[in-house]
């Protein structure tokens, strides 16, 4: 199993464009936005916070949604389409382990990206370290699990790798919108804000755990539920060839 994770990690790193984008892009975006003075000024709309403070959770949303929906479904559907899973089915090792290895690597990449964002925010812009680290960890893990599970559902149901990529991109765009990546959340109608806090990866819980007090347990519970339901659907519907 370790060998699988190692190989998957190598493949992840070798796919430079995607891996760099997933891990480094949120920090870059933070640095670029932070370079604009106006976005570093505390504003009453954000409850006395700066724009960049309020945008941190959306950066986390980006990372989780990008890895969970741009990488996971395409890689998994391609493995199936190319017969990689079928090939493994002939060995004593079950192909599910390859998928598990793939998930572990993607999860580690997501965590790495979030940690990097925390460090950059703290060092460069003096953003507080997460107020509620455990809450943030839960929010990231559950939100990530929910998003990855959605990615797996798409991989399970899409007939081809191309279709998987297309469907996943649509869902990705939608989650990015609800997660306030395109437009800051305060500019979105309150209904959209509401949907955003309950749709994976759970922007609200991340924001509260980082710069508020504690995340709302209902938001976390919803993420857990999404992971569970989507995970079950994916496992039931998955075709190995």
């Amino acid at each position, binding site marked *: 199993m370790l*060998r699988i994770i190692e*190989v998957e990690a190598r493949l992840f790193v070798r796919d430079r464009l995607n891996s760099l984008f997933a891990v480094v892009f949120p920090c870059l975006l933070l640095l670029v936005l932070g370079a604009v003075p106006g976005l570093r000024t505390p504003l009453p709309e954000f409850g006395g916070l700066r724009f960049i403070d309020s945008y941190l959770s959306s950066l986390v949303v980006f990372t989780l949604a990008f890895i969970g929906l741009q990488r996971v479904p395409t890689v998994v559907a391609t493995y199936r389409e*190319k017969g990689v899973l*079928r090939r493994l089915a*002939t*060995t004593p090792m079950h192909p599910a382990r390859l998928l598990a290895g793939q998930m572990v690597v993607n999860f580690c990449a997501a965590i790495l990206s979030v940690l990097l964002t925390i460090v950059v925010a703290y060092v460069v812009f003096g953003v507080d370290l997460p107020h509620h680290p455990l809450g943030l960890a839960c929010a990231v893990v559950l939100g990530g699990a929910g998003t990855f599970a959605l990615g797996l559902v798409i991989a399970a149901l899409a007939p081809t790798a191309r279709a998987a990529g297309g469907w996943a991109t649509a869902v990705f765009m939608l989650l990015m919108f609800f997660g306030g990546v395109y437009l800051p959340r305060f500019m979105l109608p309150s209904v959209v804000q509401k949907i955003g806090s309950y749709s994976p990866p759970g922007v609200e819980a991340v924001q509260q755990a980082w710069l508020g007090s504690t995340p709302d347990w209902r938001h976390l519970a919803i993420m857990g539920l999404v992971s569970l339901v989507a995970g079950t659907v994916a496992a039931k519907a998955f075709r190995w060839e």
Partner: protein
Amino acid sequence: MAIIEVRDLGKRYGPRVAVNSVSFDVAEGEIFGILGPNGAGKTTTVECVAGLRKPDQGSVSVLGRPPASVRSAIGVQLQASELPERMRVGEALSLFSSFYPSPADWSERLGLTPHLRAEFGRLSGGLKQRLSIALALIGSPRVAILDELTTGLDPQARRDTWSVVEQVRSAGVTILLVTHFMEEAERLCDRVAVFRDGRIAALDTPSGLVSRVDGSCRVRFVPSAFLDVALLQALPEVAEVSQVGEQIVVSGAENLLHAVTSLLARKQIVARGLRVDQVSLDDAYVELTGGRDVADH
């Protein structure tokens, strides 16, 4: 002792019957060929033997056990199954070797050593096949299943692959070989099962299959003097005689030539322009599969 036993195997996909009451045994150390047109049930059969599919009917056993329980004793090279594009040859070999208790390294013998750092997506067709064979053999299997091993290879690569298969056999591995090419079956296989419409149409040695075809040998000549065709017809070896202009065409069993030339010698007739055509496995195949296009791929 039979290392592979297939009894009354049946498999259907929805309404379509892919394989219907197929039975055969493969002896240890044998190269057993499976021939047949597309859709005749070859791949489905070997997938059942590999434990990838569950038969709807009948049974399959490898080493006396259900195939799924002896995965590490079966090495499989599948048609159209690839590896991740960016995985390197060396990584694939070390990954697959970690699945088995006593891995064997075939990379040297298969000429893969210079390519260990090459990514799978950039390999030529021949190298991909060789890697695929190396991965099939990596668990030191007792049985290797090779499905359309040489399809898409150029003639040189095909011949190289054949010598690899012979090496594998001499290492004591039993081989189940699915193929489209008669030449390949004739050269490699000890016995061949010809599939047609999900059933075995014939099962024999390659030469046995050839001899099943009427008139497996054909002799043509122009006699130097008049020859009564009835004399030829009276020979027990002769199945058919026809005359086209001066040329006489005789077809019959394998020892036909000797019978015909003895007759001519007794009559002191010289055969001019003598030509002998041997029926090949190709002809046998076409006859056995009902004349469907062999090259249709």
